[in-house]
């Protein structure tokens, strides 16, 4: 495999400058220094591996993106596309890479008749939601937050409680414009044959599966420059208005069409039954189990405020841990006030039958509709890491929460924040056909402990340990994708993911310059905690590459000419000379 260029040469810089103009490219260290994430938030190992870019370039349109990646190909420059730079995995991981900052490509077009929005890669969620509501439509804001880029987020998680009613967000991806690592553009869905993005399906194989979801590529290969997203009809005759300000800002609900309910459940079994029954009756817009700590986050007005409430309540929370979780339900009268009344009566029947106690809740929305993860999420420790987030069955969610909690309580608390026995966040998706589960850990990044006792180290270790736990318990884990310690989960869950991934990547990105490298975790583990390999019984991905396993030979045979499988008209060829 050719080696990627380690530094951006003057010739390459000039070529980039010729494409975008001198105003939109820089190698000034005062700027490149800031193209890494800070703090501690999800996927800390990715953060550890981050490197500032050698060059940042800001294209204005698809044509410039094509030209830029062709220059990168020509000069063997690894590059990392950036939408809003919200997820930590957005950051570049090799030195002197080219950061392709897509923030200028914040386009937003509408096909109101067919309820479709077409967004550019720099667009984020809150303007999309604001404009959608102005047009009598709405979409969903992901847990990741309104500041996440719509395209980047749709390609990765895009999970939200509203997925209960709207279905998993990745299924709402329609036509896509995709610049491959070699600079060629392909269009998926009906965009492949016309300028109409309405249909997600198009002629030939449906390549959307390569793009989306946590089993997809997490933006690894190429750059999506346009995406058409299915919208939904707005359920209210008027827009919800923002009230209050600062950290209290919220969207006020009208009292006749949309309403939150918080139920304290008498047992875990009652919680499970409630979630199943609500789905079976096909009512509700969102259904979730909320761990107690989230409620404290939600009602705190500062970090100090959070700890002043959470700390003293410890005994109370510990003693009621079996019943402390809240089942939070959002009902919407999509068609009428009568629908809300009907759904409320069904909900109350279910909950009364299970002995649930209805608590107070504020009838407004700080998250999910127009904002998310920006209200109190960081109060406890200034950051957090998801060590597991997975869409599976409801039973799996409950079981996975227990195994992860057991691991955390026995080995990692302290220094991780003690959540007093909470087993994670669970929300129903796809009207109850699936369930989303997330397990967060938090720690004090400034905790004055030695390297192997620090919160950061323990957070990473828990992240690795959670994958071992899944394998040992026969549980599915989201960490089999490109976020995983591949050497640990790959062999355990089968080689298919890696095989498909690598073969397609080889076909379109033989230099491995698009958002490299895959083996980040191996490098980090080798450098930071080689003992984990023994503790958690795995080889690194790169070690597996050389151990003669049959599947790895297949994986590395590079004998598939994937591109040749497609008819020539499928490709939008652009072989123009650059600069």
């Amino acid at each position, binding site marked *: 495999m050719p080696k990627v260029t380690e530094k951006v040469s003057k010739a390459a810089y000039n070529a980039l400058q010729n494409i975008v103009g001198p105003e939109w490219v820089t190698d000034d260290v005062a700027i490149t220094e800031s193209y890494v994430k*800070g703090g501690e938030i999800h996927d800390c190992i990715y953060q550890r591996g981050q490197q500032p870019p050698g060059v940042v370039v800001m294209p204005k349109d698809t044509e410039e993106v094509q030209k830029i990646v062709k220059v990168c190909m020509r000069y063997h420059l690894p590059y990392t596309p950036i939408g809003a730079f919200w997820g930590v995995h957005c950051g570049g991981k090799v030195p002197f890479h080219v950061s392709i900052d897509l923030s200028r490509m914040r386009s937003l077009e509408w096909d109101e008749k067919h309820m479709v929005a077409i967004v550019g890669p720099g667009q984020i969620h809150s303007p999309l939601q604001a404009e959608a509501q102005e047009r009598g439509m709405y979409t969903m804001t992901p847990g990741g*937050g309104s500041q996440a880029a719509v395209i980047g987020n749709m390609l990765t998680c895009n999970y939200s409680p509203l997925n209960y009613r709207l279905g998993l967000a990745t299924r709402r991806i329609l036509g896509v414009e995709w610049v491959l690592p070699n600079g060629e553009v392909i269009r998926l869905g009906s965009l492949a044959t016309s300028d109409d993005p309405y249909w997600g399906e198009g002629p030939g194989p449906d390549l959307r599966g390569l793009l989306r979801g946590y089993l997809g590529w997490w933006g690894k290969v190429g750059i999506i420059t346009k995406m058409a997203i299915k919208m939904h009809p707005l359920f209210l005759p008027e827009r919800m208005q923002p009230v209050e300000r600062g950290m209290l800002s919220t969207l006020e609900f009208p009292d006749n069409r949309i309403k939150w309910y918080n139920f304290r459940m008498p047992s875990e079994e009652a919680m499970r039954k409630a979630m199943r029954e609500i789905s079976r009756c096909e009512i509700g817009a969102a259904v979730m189990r909320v761990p107690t700590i989230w409620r404290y986050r939600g009602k705190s007005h500062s970090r*100090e405020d959070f700890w002043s409430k959470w700390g003293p309540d410890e005994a109370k929370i510990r003693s009621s841990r079996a019943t402390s979780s809240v089942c939070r339900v959002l009902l919407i009268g999509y068609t009428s006030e009568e629908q809300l009344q009907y759904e409320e009566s069904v909900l109350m029947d279910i909950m009364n039958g299970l002995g649930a106690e209805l608590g107070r809740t504020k009838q407004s929305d700080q998250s999910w509709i127009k904002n998310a993860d*920006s209200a109190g999420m960081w109060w406890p420790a*200034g950051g957090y890491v998801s060590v597991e987030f997975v869409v599976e069955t409801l039973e799996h969610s409950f079981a996975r929460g227990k195994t992860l909690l057991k691991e955390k309580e026995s080995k990692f608390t302290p220094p991780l924040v003690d959540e007093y026995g909470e087993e994670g966040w669970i929300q129903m998706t796809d009207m109850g056909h699936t369930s989303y589960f997330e397990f967060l850990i938090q720690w004090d990044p400034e905790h004055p402990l030695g390297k192997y006792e620090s919160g950061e180290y323990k957070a990473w270790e828990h992240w690795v340990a959670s994958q071992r736990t899944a394998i040992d318990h026969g549980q599915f884990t989201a960490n089999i994708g490109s976020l995983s310690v591949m050497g640990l989960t790959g062999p355990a869950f089968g080689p298919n993911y890696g095989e498909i991934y690598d073969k397609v990547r080889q076909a379109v990105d033989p230099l491995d310059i698009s958002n490299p490298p895959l083996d980040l975790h191996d490098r980090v583990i080798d450098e930071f905690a080689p003992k984990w390999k023994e503790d958690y019984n795995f080889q690194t991905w790169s070690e597996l590459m050389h151990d003669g396993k049959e599947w790895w030979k297949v994986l590395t045979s590079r004998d598939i000419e994937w591109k040749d499988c497609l008819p020539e008209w499928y490709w939008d060829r652009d072989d123009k000379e650059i600069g």
Partner: protein
Amino acid sequence: MIVEGSLELKDYMYEMRRCMRCASCKWLDHIYMPDNRFVYRCPSYGKYYFSKVAYGRLKLGLALTEDRLKDSPGMKDMVFQCLMCGACDSGCKRNLDLEINYSLEALRGHMVESGRYPKQHQKLIDNVVKSKNRYGLPAKERTAWKPTKAKKKADTVYFAGCGASYKQTQVAQATDKILGKLGGYMLLPGEQCCGHPLFAMGHFEAFKKQMEMNLKALAKTGAKRLVTACAECYKTWKVDYPRLMKKSTCDLPFEVVHITELVDEALGKGELELKGKLDMKLAWHDPCNLGRMSEPYTHWEGDRGQWGCLEPAKGFEAKQFNRGTAGTYEAPRNILKALQGVELVELKRHHEFSWCCGGHGGVPEAYPDLAAYAVDERLEEAKAVGAEAVVSACPYCKEQFEAGQKKRDHQVQVFDITELIAQAL
């Protein structure tokens, strides 16, 4: 030990390390996001992109403090292409409570200490230091606006500031009329620049000298109240002076009041009546230094304990965060609503989300392109909400709006609120 409002960059290591680039300093509050046109809160980012916003500057500050970076051709621009308008600070305090304003001020001070600041700032610095006003004009011309109601001795001092004294003199004349109706006032003998431009540009030592001279002059008058119609002077007297003295605003031996607060109170008590009719659709522009930047300063000392919690030192109470929401927002709105015939509309970005007019932080001097962009954006907002006029409460905002108007086809009228009040008396 954390000392609130320190001017040393190294004292903001926590802020610089803990910034996670969540971009709340860049985007408008998402709950209030109006549409796809007016999405940013930071003019610097809106104009230049890349990472010319608080998260980028904090990362640079961290690299400088950790001695990983020395200099670069673009470093000065990265630091000083910023209006110091405080919009980023209120955004961060939605999520993380990091002291962004303080960090950015300290970063400027750090750059200035090593002589790395735009050369275009020098004239402004020299003007204030030598001529005691930002224009370098003779001191004797400071009252050329002809105060008619000023007394030799009064409990209220009117601090006109450089802008109203030399350029936007109609603001000083209107304030003179208003204060005349409210019991009279005296001018600060030998008034000179409050020092605001020096502070905003990072020249803290020169600023301290201005501060000391002004405080001495005010102490000599024995006045209990200082009134100003300039948002920059207001912030300087109310927030920056006590901060540098390690005192809280409430512990100052005098009260600092903006003319809008005084008029609003008088209207509420029935001591003032606004007459006449102004049939006009007005948009109120919240000046940064009247709103989010001018919450009362509360001095605090303490330490950061476990989980990053702030623990007060002996003699101090729990830290009061200034999050931008408790500035002077309602007083001017109440006044405008009291004007007969006025239809008051909100601009797209208002209160602590207000978009800066561009006239601040040494930007008009060093980066006129950014100043012009900022004001054009604001005037575009006025157009979007159908306003016939934009009203503000700061001579520098008015100056900016007037300059911005000249380059636009779509015209709106521009007023300082004092002009409208004086007209209605």
